[in-house]
């Protein structure tokens, strides 16, 4: 069973992230959330994923969010209205997902479809095929290599996109006028 404690803690943090209007706190809570999910991944035997989630979620993403926070208001404006629509969408999505779980195979069972088809091939054959003990690396870089190439290009695209967006020096002065002092409504 997944660590129920971890999951419960994550729910608490997620709610806190949504509720807080202090974006700095939200970023920090999000980092903790990432670390917790990394721990969860580790519990689920996904070492590579855990390492990555820790490095990305708690590391890169948080640093980037903080870097942007240095440029924008720290406190979120209180939102008004249209939460009902959001709530409706979310509830429908959630209901659909719950509905979906009703016929899911038993968690962690070794005879789940996911464990008997394709997956075993990687477990059994990746060492004979390529002499690589880390099956994740084998699948990532050889069996499903084109996916990983796509991933590399996604990162490349992100680099180009940020280069295109922020490689330009700012010219407009509008941001200065509306940057209110940060001490207001620190609730």
């Amino acid at each position, binding site marked *: 069973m997944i660590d129920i404690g971890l999951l419960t803690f994550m729910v608490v943090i997620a709610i806190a992230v949504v509720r807080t209007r202090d974006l700095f706190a939200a970023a920090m809570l999000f980092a903790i959330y990432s670390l917790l999910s990394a721990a969860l991944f580790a519990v689920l035997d996904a070492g*590579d994923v855990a390492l990555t989630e820790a*490095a990305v979620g708690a590391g*890169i993403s948080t*640093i980037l969010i903080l*870097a942007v926070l240095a440029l924008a208001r720290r406190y979120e404006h209180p939102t008004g209205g249209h939460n009902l629509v959001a709530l409706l969408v979310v509830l429908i999505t959630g209901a659909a997902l719950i509905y979906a779980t009703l016929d899911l195979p038993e968690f962690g069972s070794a005879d789940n479809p996911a464990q008997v088809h394709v997956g075993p091939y990687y477990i059994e054959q990746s060492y004979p095929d*390529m002499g690589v003990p880390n099956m994740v690396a084998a699948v990532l870089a050889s069996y499903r*290599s084109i996916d990983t190439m796509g991933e*590399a290009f996604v*990162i*490349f695209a992100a680099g180009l996109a940020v280069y295109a967006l922020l490689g330009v020096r700012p010219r407009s002065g509008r941001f200065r006028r509306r940057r209110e002092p940060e001490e207001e409504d620190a609730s």
Partner: protein
Amino acid sequence: MRENGILRIVARFLIPLIMLFGLYIQFHGEYSPGGGFQAGVVVAAGWILFALIYGLEAALKVIPERVMYVLAAFGVLLYAITGLMGVILGGRYLDFYPLLPGEHAAQQFGIITVEFGVGVTVATVVMLIFTYFARRKSEWEALSEEEPE
């Protein structure tokens, strides 16, 4: 943070360690968790730490912006061309077997190469993105000084 002497000293020890760790997960990826992506992130994190402590200008002297940009493209091209080598040597795209005579050696060579490509791209792109975000603030301030309200 730049004034903090202790931090500087700690960083002086820490950053090489981080880099070393990055290289380890880059090239030990087939045996233990890790690979190009994680390595790239770790190396970039080390560099970002350097930039936070010693300043962005100093960090950019280590790897200039233009170099990062070129290396990012180099990384993906390395990946793509490794794939292409499979075709040129008579196999399919991203087929590593034709690369070297030994089967395992060929696969491992291919995996290491493409992972290295990923690592380079990830590291440089993360650095690049951080550079732009971090520099934005000073650019804004420069702008405010030029035309005071």
